[in-house]
């Protein structure tokens, strides 16, 4: 029996202009899963991710993290949760421009506050090496390639040893090779037990997950359960492709 790590119950998201994105949407994310959200453009994939991570508010409904409601938490408690329990990887790397890669990662570690500063620095170096950017730690984001920056962004998301990693189109701005490398890193993390919730419109990226949710018209239309990813296989890709075709994607 899988443990629920994140749960959205009766989520409703409407806009002041009158539009409505979700109407009573339920979503469950399991601990240790690599969950992927797919759907057509404008379906609200990123919004769902931001709502579930507490970065955006819901009009009604509840979000629970490890069984505790987080929707009504104070700004301070929510910031603490983001620092200690959540990690984020964005499409645009969104590294702070005047901090080096090392500092971008270390600051997130300092904020998490799980280790003393010295230990955070050691961990930062280790993580950057693991992500393959150990040699670029003293460079600014503008001085490295998009792939290197994204790998540093993953390191930043991981430094606090988060309960769940949110990834919003992490390969959307990368070339094919860099995309593969980033996906390999994410898959590797998941294989070591890291829960991941990723939004993507890339079928190959989606195939890295073991659970794919299809979002359309404000509701989860269907889901595909796959075995945990071990290595690239045509069979897995075709299964995902066939499933998406059945949803007229």
């Amino acid at each position: 029996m899988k443990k629920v790590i994140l749960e959205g119950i009766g989520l409703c998201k409407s806009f002041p202009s009158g539009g409505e994105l979700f109407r009573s949407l339920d979503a469950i994310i399991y601990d240790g899963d690599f969950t992927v959200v797919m759907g057509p453009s404008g379906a609200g994939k990123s919004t769902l991710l931001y709502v579930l991570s507490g970065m955006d508010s819901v009009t009604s409904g509840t979000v629970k993290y490890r069984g505790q409601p987080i929707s009504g938490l104070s700004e301070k408690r929510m910031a603490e949760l983001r620092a200690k329990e959540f990690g984020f990887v964005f499409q645009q790397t969104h590294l702070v421009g005047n901090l080096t890669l090392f500092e971008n990662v270390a600051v997130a570690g300092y904020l998490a506050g799980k280790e003393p500063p010295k230990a955070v620095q050691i961990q930062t170096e280790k993580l950057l090496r693991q992500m393959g950017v150990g040699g670029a730690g003293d460079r600014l984001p503008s001085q490295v390639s998009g792939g290197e920056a994204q790998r540093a962004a993953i390191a930043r998301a991981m430094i606090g040893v988060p309960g769940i990693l949110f990834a919003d189109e992490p390969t959307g701005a990368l070339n094919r090779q860099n995309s593969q490398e980033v996906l390999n890193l994410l898959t590797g993390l998941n294989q070591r037990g890291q829960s991941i919730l990723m939004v993507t419109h890339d079928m190959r990226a989606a195939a890295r997950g073991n659970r794919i949710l299809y979002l359309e018209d404000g509701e989860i239309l269907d889901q595909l359960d796959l075995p945990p990813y071990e290595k690239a296989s045509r069979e897995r890709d075709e299964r995902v492709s066939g499933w998406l075709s059945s949803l007229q994607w």
Partner: protein
Amino acid sequence: MEFKTLLLANLRRHRSGLMGISLLIFLVSLALSSVLTLWGNSSSYLGSELERAGYGTITAWTSGNTGSLLEEITALGAVERVSEQKIIHTNYSLNGQESDSEGQLILYQPEERRYRFFTGDLSGYGNPPGEIQPGTVWVSPSLVSMFGAALGDEITFPIARSGQNLTLTIAGWYEDPFMGSSMIGMKGFLISEADRQNALEILESAGIDALARDGSMLHIFAAEGGLTAADLSAEINASTSLPKFAEFVHSRETIFGFMLVLQNSFGGFLLAFAAVLLLASMAVLGHQIGSGLRQDRRNMGILKTMGLSSKGLRTVQLAQYLAAILPAMVLGLMLAPAVSAAARDMTLATTGIRVPSSLPLGLCLLALSLMLAALVIFLLWQLNKLRHVTPLDAIRGEADGMPVPVKGLPAISGSCLNGSLALRQLITGWGQYLGAVLVAALLVFFASLVGRMDCWLGPDGQGMMDAFNPADHDLGVQSFGDLTREDFEKIIQQYSGITDTYLLAMPSVTVNGVDHTANVTDQPERFHLLAGQPCTGENEIVITEFVAEDFGVGIGGTLSIGASQCIGEYTVSGIYSCANDMGATIGMSREGYLKIGSDHPNLWCWHYFLDDPSQKGDIAGALEAAYGGDVHVHENTWPGLLGIIAAMGALTAFLYGMAALFILVVTAMTSGKLLAAEQRDLAVCRAMGFTAGKLRLTFALRFGMAAAVGAITGTVLAAILADPLVSAAMRLAGISSFTSAPGPAEVLFPGTAIVILFFAFGWLTAGRIQKVRMTILAAD
């Protein structure tokens, strides 16, 4: 057409920044125009009022039976005419406080129309009284600041011993163009004919017990195209019996100096402050132009590809800034009369004159034109950067993409995350904070300058008193009767031990024929000597720097000094400081003076140093209670000092108020741009777990740090330049020896205050961080 379109678009796009510039320029224009209004009107108004009051080229205050003196002076070829005003010289006390200087009971003659009268609440001018009722007196409003006077208060004038006083009730206020200012201890009191006769009868019957003296003010007018005031004074002294009767003589210029010393010195400082604000505005303007160009660089590149020249772009930019500057300048100019009227009304009880608030349009327009010219030159210089915008570079955004190297910068510290992050932001974006640094440096420099003056003045005005007094003391006691030193000291020692004593007299003398005051002492080594030796020899004198300049003599030179007995030659042994009579004083030894002047026990004032100076107020009260009008007691203070200390306090409060307003505008302008540019980074930081409060703190810290850099610069500059600059300004008031010795708290206060203000306003304007939405980071 494209000019109008682009101008309107730019005005819309940069409206908040331009409004900030407008506000700063408005404050500068308002401050400048208000000071010029007050300053410009002061001297012209005082001139016309001295004319109305009948003051001549020189005015001599005489006492005793002057016999044919009036005719003697009138007969001189250098004199056009002489007019006489009857007065009685007398001490006075009000609200339990005795004046340090004598007052003059002036007979009010309504037909002469010499004076203007205020309404009871001092809100404006009232009708002159048809006559002054016996038992009442009209006084200068400066008695309000000096003695806390109010209508209905009684003033006691000791006319003769044994309590033969004249007690008059204040019935109204009048404008005295000579003795009206609280800077002048001597005061004029308008009285009725009946009270004057009453006082004269007391004097006549009192004989040697008289404490007051009958006398006159002789207004002497030089013949047209005739002598200068100094030469006229010298000729009259040489050719008539005036020196025998004159208590003191002042030229019209000296009276101007006395009356306007407050307006001029404070006006000068406010003018300097307006200049500082202008420089600060230019710093902000430079920053605004820089950031505006960065913001518009891409658009400008596009406009250039469309055929617009650098000159065309520059014209649009210039017009955009002038559209913000010109209305602000005009508005400041228009509001200046109201502000100067408010300032005048607030200071009426100190200055004693109600200076008109009509705008000296020519002067203000000249000043504002110069200011505008300086701003236009600055704008053109700054906008010259437009020449370097090439269409392709701008569209590619190459200049914007240059990363700021971080090697060698302080690392981000886990234990001081907020501070180290703020420092990094500040260093890597230093161009954004340059305006704040410059504004902080300028404001701290000026605040330090005023702080040093405040420090010199001290909470009780000790610095000012030391500058005016020729020598230090705690208490001065002068006998007007047969009382002896032993009589005073018996009472003094009931309160405090006496550590030291010396004698001082202040008789009138002539220096090369021109009237001056001599400070005569039995211990010349006590004079505040700036250079040379004390005048211990009987043929030696010390002179102020002003006397040295006036007569072109230095140490070793000689001057002819005349007193009631004869004239003698004296060698200048040293330069000393004494700002009395605008510095027109000399110092002599007792032996030196007695060679030319006559001695009298009542000439001398005993100056005491006390074991416990805090007792001097009680001692003064006890002496006055015991001996009444037979003794004159003064502490090392004078009532006008309270007005100066209050004015200094008001100046400091005004300065910090304006500084706060300036800082608020600068911070709001800078933070508006920074927050707009940093939306994404702020959202990322919040996603990483920063609270909005922490980000706000970091943001405010950047301003605090930028201000700290400016504050250190301003403090260092003040340490080097403040004393020489203030010295130069103080010389206008006759004070030649300004040196401040501020303690660490006084040195650090202006910088700390400015840093706190920047930090606080940074915090205030960063409230928008709370509204930064993390959803801007979303992919779709």
